[in-house]
């Protein structure tokens, strides 16, 4: 039956634990940034959010590709949930980034940073995922087109980052150099724990949503088996597959 429920509790506990540890590290262990002071601590939220979101988009693309390969609708639902969660994380990135930008540069938005700009482009692209789904009535076609979109957009994520990075004259970030370790050790450890916590949170949310969806689908299937087609109220129009 719902395989998504299995292990969900353990995963959720691990997530809570990791995030708690991360928070403790952020507030009590990581050193205060010399220039930016306390506001810099948003870094430990902002950057893991961004990285998880981007990985989530690519993940959604891979799941979409599986749908196209196999024709099994469940892959589409997985892809949908993956992209949905990644979108939420992405908007979180935008908000935390905006707060940081306002605090440290005085503007909510600047163009000069290629990472920022490419993230915006990617986010703009994925924001069209829901409207696209919404405006296709036939559920099978909806699934297929959404998967095509997921594949293209997933491939677009790295392509876009490369192109935009090349486009900007001065390159000042950071993420990709993070692993290179120009962070002080304490910061680095804190960051890595936060990143793991965020990734766990993403996986937990994904599984949770999948479990809910597949339960709902099974209930509908059972009702249909018991009551026949007409016994099942038609779904409200929704972009969410079910």
């Amino acid at each position, binding site marked *: 039956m719902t395989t998504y429920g299995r292990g969900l509790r353990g995963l959720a506990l691990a997530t809570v634990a990791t995030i708690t540890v991360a928070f403790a590290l952020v507030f009590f262990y990581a050193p205060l940034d010399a220039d930016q002071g306390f506001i810099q601590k948003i870094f430990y939220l902002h950057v893991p959010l961004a990285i998880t979101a981007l990985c989530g988009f690519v993940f959604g693309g891979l799941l979409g590709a599986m749908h*196209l390969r*196999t*024709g099994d609708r469940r892959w589409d639902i997985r892809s949908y949930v993956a992209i949905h969660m990644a979108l939420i994380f992405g908007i979180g990135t935008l908000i935390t980034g905006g707060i940081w930008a306002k605090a440290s540069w005085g503007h909510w938005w600047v163009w000069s940073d290629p990472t920022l700009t490419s993230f915006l*482009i*990617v986010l*703009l*692209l994925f924001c*069209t995922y829901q*409207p*696209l789904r919404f*405006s*296709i*009535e036939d559920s099978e*076609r909806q699934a*297929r*087109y959404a*998967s*095509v*979109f997921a*594949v*293209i*957009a997933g*491939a*677009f994520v790295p*392509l*876009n980052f490369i*192109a*935009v990075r*090349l*486009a900007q004259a001065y390159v000042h970030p950071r993420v990709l150099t993070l692993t290179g370790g120009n962070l002080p050790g304490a910061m680095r450890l804190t960051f890595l724990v936060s990143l793991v916590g965020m990734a766990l949170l993403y996986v937990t949310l994904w599984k949770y949503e999948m479990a809910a969806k597949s339960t709902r689908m099974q209930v509908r299937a059972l009702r249909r088996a018991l009551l026949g087609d007409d016994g099942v109220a038609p779904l409200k129009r929704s972009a969410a597959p079910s």
Partner: protein
Amino acid sequence: MREERAPGSWRTTITVLRKDLLLELRGLETVPAMVLFALATLVVFHFGLNRDTVDGQLAAGVLTATLLFAAMLGINRLFVAEREQGGFDAFLLAPVDRSALLVAKALALFVFLAVLEVIAVPAFGLLLLGTSLGPPLLGLIAMLLLGDVALAVIGTLVSAIAVHTRARDLIGPIIGLPLLMPALIALARGIGPLLAVHGSSWPPARWVLILALYDVVFALLAYAVFDFLLED
């Protein structure tokens, strides 16, 4: 559950392309609208900017934006006849490779864009540009053609996606614009130096390369997924 592919063939592509060009000649629906829109935009910029001439990166930006929006008009119309007059079904009933339709549409769009540029770029040179188009002409043509490929491929892809949606006139552009962004950046940056006063006569290799690579990657991507967009 995927269906096996019929043997592909250039013949089919040419047949569809010929039909599309014939329809365009009959109705004169797309290209004139694109051209006139581009010209009007240039005039608007001319008067709107209150500058007699532009050059360098600003000129490149104006040209790119103008071409992009004119292309949008063409992209929006690409599948209208197929949708409204049963062209999709008629094509799907024929024993031919389905991706031929995509290739033909992309070629048609490419032709439309090329025609557009043949008119709009000299007009741009006359109306707005501060320098001569002569010296960098070859480089400019190369960049524009590479840009046209991106516009044609991505435009075809997104309008194939959008055509079966309810809000098709919006869905196409909103998916297309972000996807086109890298290509547009490369195009604008690539022709910027060409349009500068005493500019270079050849675009920076970096941008040519990026644009060309982008073209290739998306052409492959589009070819890979197109079949799924035609199934029912």
